[in-house]
């Protein structure tokens, strides 16, 4: 059998075997089954069909699978926090005591003091109307651990331990008064304040920006170092690999693979595991050590900032879209909010430009400005020689045919009461293109193109899976044969393997139809996969523009470097944590300054002159070094 502990990875044979429940295991689950009975019916659905796994004291196990695979349900069933309609059988030994069927008072005590739980969305996992103090101390009182001033002291300690600054003040706050990262930390503090031995983490970083995700994962790693065992439920192999020693892969409620992380990454046994590994997008950031010397540093054509820099110009290709000095200021009662400022970009015909940024960076506002769904405060937008901002009425409507959008949430962007065929031809109907029969033909043609069979054309959106819905949305966007497709996070609501399929479809369409795309994403791997060039945005302004190759291997702006440093590779060597922390700490510098072209087509916002970049920094496997 495989040692489940990272301390002895040498024993790993690469074979997938099921660790047997051992005396030493902190938690050992065997043949856990969960089924739900529907109200007023004898029929029951089995959601978890025989989960077996074990977590050694202080160990960490990842449960990986796509949505609906039973990851969350199995852990909640173990803790007995599912609704009454759930029926749980099997065995879950925690410190030798079976949690399944345990009397409620005993189980409650274990829930409170032995096993902690954290969730994906701290905003909803924390009660919005109670202060942190109440939520961090109430269970100390329930279980007789501490009360009054002592409980409060413990809560403050816990907040301090998870890295919340000024815990004495923040403990009096309500969840909504904290930032996203702090809320996540506060939730972790709530789970660990009673001193549990095991933490069940249910996708705790999925809703976070990459840099914040990295910080929260580092916090979890620190807690592990202090002896806390962790079960990490996630769909992100990078996260699993970063934090965990062992991995359990679930599919349709069953375990398909149970192995040490090392052997899983190098030689996954089960076909589905291999599929997950293959479809997971991995960012390749580091260039090999040897490549550094070959860098064409002499290519540096140092030009100082132009009066009107137009980064994104690629060669002689005709420009489809030129944006100059775009700005958008929202006027609110509390003052003005600058969403986008000083933004210039060019999309050459047939190219895909990625816009990378974290939430609040203004990337979605940019999409709305370019499509004229929102009016800019200042700047010019030229589309194929037409001044877009001067269009109105019929001419604006005619122009809209050339620019179409794909949104993040496919179900929300399709009309639920229309068949998918009707959805696809909606734009044709709006623009009065073709006859009804012709539109029908066109709908079938478009659906076939995105891989939806004709036989399903008359079904409704809800009858399709998320990935298929997004295909329909893409087909609809292509119905008018637009010159530019603006995609706003089109894959971030989808499961990993579905995401890969949709990206493949977009890549294929791009090549076949010669589409130009503006692709907005927070996911660096997606941008790397699909985009020719990319723009990095932070706080409403562009900080770096480069071809994706350059951007991912020779990032110059500290913010880009921090983004890349926070990425969790699946296969590649992890960069040392100290380097990453340093990169994250340097994030806010150099927001000021101008965009400077440091090499052909590589623009960086900086106060320095281009000459300072003659020896560019290079991200290697050892972190950032001066080349």
């Amino acid at each position, binding site marked *: 059998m495989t040692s489940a502990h990272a301390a002895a990875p040498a024993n790993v044979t690469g074979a997938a075997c099921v660790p047997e429940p051992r005396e030493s295991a902190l938690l050992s689950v065997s043949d856990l089954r969960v089924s739900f009975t529907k109200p007023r019916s004898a029929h029951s659905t089995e959601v978890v069909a025989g989960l077996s796994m074990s977590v050694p004291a202080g160990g960490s196990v990842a449960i990986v699978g796509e*949505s609906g695979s039973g990851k969350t349900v199995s852990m909640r069933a173990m803790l007995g926090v599912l609704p009454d309609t759930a029926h749980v059988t099997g065995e879950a030994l925690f410190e030798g005591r079976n949690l399944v069927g345990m009397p409620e008072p005993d189980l409650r005590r274990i829930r409170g003091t032995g096993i902690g739980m954290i969730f994906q969305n701290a905003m909803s*996992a924390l009660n*919005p109307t109670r202060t942190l103090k109440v939520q961090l101390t109430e269970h100390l009182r329930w279980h007789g651990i501490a009360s009054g001033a002592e409980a409060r002291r413990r809560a403050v300690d816990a907040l301090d331990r998870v890295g919340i600054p000024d815990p004495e003040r923040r403990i009096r706050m*309500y969840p909504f008064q904290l930032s*996203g990262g702090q809320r996540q930390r506060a939730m972790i503090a709530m789970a660990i304040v009673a001193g549990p031995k095991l933490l069940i983490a249910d996708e705790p970083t999925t809703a976070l920006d990459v840099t914040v995700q990295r910080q929260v994962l580092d916090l979890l790693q620190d807690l592990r170092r202090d002896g806390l065992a962790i079960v990490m439920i996630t769909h992100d192999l990078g996260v699993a690999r970063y934090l965990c020693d062992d991995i359990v892969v679930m599919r349709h409620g069953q375990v398909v693979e149970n192995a040490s992380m090392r052997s899983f990454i190098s030689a996954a046994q089960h076909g589905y595991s291999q599929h997950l590994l293959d479809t997971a997008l991995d960012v390749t950031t580091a260039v090999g050590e040897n490549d550094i010397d070959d860098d064409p540093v002499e290519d540096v054509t140092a030009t100082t900032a132009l009066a009107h820099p137009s980064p994104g110009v690629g060669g002689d290709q005709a420009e489809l879209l030129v944006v100059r000095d775009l700005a958008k200021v929202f006027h609110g009662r509390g003052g003005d909010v600058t969403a986008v400022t000083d933004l210039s970009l060019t999309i050459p015909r047939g190219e895909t430009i990625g816009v990378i940024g974290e939430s609040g960076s203004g990337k979605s506002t940019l999409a709305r400005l370019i499509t004229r769904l929102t009016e800019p405060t200042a700047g010019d937008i030229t589309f194929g020689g037409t001044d877009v901002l001067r269009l109105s009425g019929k001419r604006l409507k005619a122009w809209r045919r050339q620019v179409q959008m794909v949104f993040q949430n496919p179900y929300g962007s399709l009309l639920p009461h229309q068949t998918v065929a009707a959805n696809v031809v909606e734009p044709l109907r709006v623009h009065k293109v073709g006859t009804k029969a012709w539109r029908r033909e066109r709908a079938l043609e478009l659906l076939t193109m995105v891989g939806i069979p004709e036989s399903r054309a008359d079904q409704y959106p809800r009858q399709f899976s998320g990935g298929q819905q997004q295909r329909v949305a893409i087909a609809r966007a292509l119905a008018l044969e637009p010159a530019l497709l603006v995609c706003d996070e089109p894959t971030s609501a989808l499961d990993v393997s579905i995401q890969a399929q949709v990206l493949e479809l977009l890549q294929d369409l791009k090549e076949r139809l010669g589409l130009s795309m503006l692709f907005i994403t927070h996911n660096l791997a997606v941008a790397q996969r699909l985009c020719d060039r990319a723009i990095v945005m932070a*706080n409403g302004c562009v900080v770096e523009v480069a071809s994706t190759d350059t951007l991912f291997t020779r990032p110059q702006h500290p913010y880009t470097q921090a983004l890349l440093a926070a990425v969790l590779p699946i296969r590649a060597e992890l960069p040392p944590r100290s380097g990453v922390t340093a990169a994250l700490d340097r*994030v*806010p510098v150099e927001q000021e300054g101008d965009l400077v072209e440091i090499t052909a087509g590589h623009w960086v916002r900086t106060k320095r002159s281009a000459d300072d970049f003659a020896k560019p920094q290079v991200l290697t496997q050892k972190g950032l070094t001066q080349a």
Partner: protein
Amino acid sequence: MLAYVARRLVRLVLSLIAVSIITFGLLQLVPGSFSDLAEVGSTALGDQTSGDGGGDSLASRYGDQVPAWEQYARFMTGLVQWDMGPTFKYPQSSVEELMGEAFLVSLSLAVPATLLTLLVAIPIGMVAAVKKDKLADYGSIFTLTTIQALPGYLFALVLVLVFSVGLGWLPVRGWAGPEYMVIPVVALAVQPTAMLARYVRSSMLEALRDEYVVAALAKGGSRRTVLVRHVLRNSLIPLVTVVGPIFAALATGTVFVEVLLGIPGLGRLFTLAARTRDMPLLMGTTLFFALILMVMNLIVDLVYGLLDPRIRHQQRTSSRWRRPRRAGLLPASQLVDSRTQGGRDDGGGGSETPSPDVSAADGTEVRR
């Protein structure tokens, strides 16, 4: 906070003025001015000759020779000074006297009826929510829906039949002591109870779906503790918005029950005023109704703020969270944090988040 209340009060006064103009305008269109009534010697006018010559003063206030705007201005001045003068039907008593007496009667029904509503509706709604899809749920919801569909005065009649006529425990009608309150209070409370219980149920069900319930259970709270400390509290907050109008409606009198049971409350006064085209009394009662409703709404909003820290925060600052123009000056941790928080006002632009749920949902982008 003070600024918020002040702003709301200004709005309230403006609304009241609007209501008064509309009411006065409509009453001018209705046939039967004071002089018309006097000409035909209508019984709608009270004893004009007796007492201190009220007839003269009425004629000088509302007679044909007085232009409409002056009638309006004089009434409104009176309203501000709480001296609205005599009414057509009762020249000896003033509008405010009549309303004051009637309001006290209505209030002494409304307060117990509202309390009764709360006491009965919340437990029923809770049980129905916790026992969702079980007999207790179906049974109570079926009963409540049926009751809600029946008019309140029907219950008054049934209660009179059973307890007054049949058993002889309670007086049939009138207003002469505490025993006269029982039937009207119960009759008034029935419908609001049915409505509120259904609200409680759906509000509880919504709160039960929230993840903090699982989080609290995972902390080892018993179902009962979690229900009371987290779910009940949060699910009752939105109910304040329902209870306010319920109270306002009861306090301004419910016409049917008051007329039926012979209770001299505001509802009866209002019907009387409408029947006799008593312009000053109609103006007075309408404005009073409007005032009570608006004050209740203001109280509801303030109580909402008291119960929900998110709303309190909004009211107190009364300005949106502001993002710094350039983040370059912020320390590292703050920048990282502000970036995650930025999602909240990213899409919203200039608009305010209308409800706490919306701002909660927008706080973080959910990505899968």
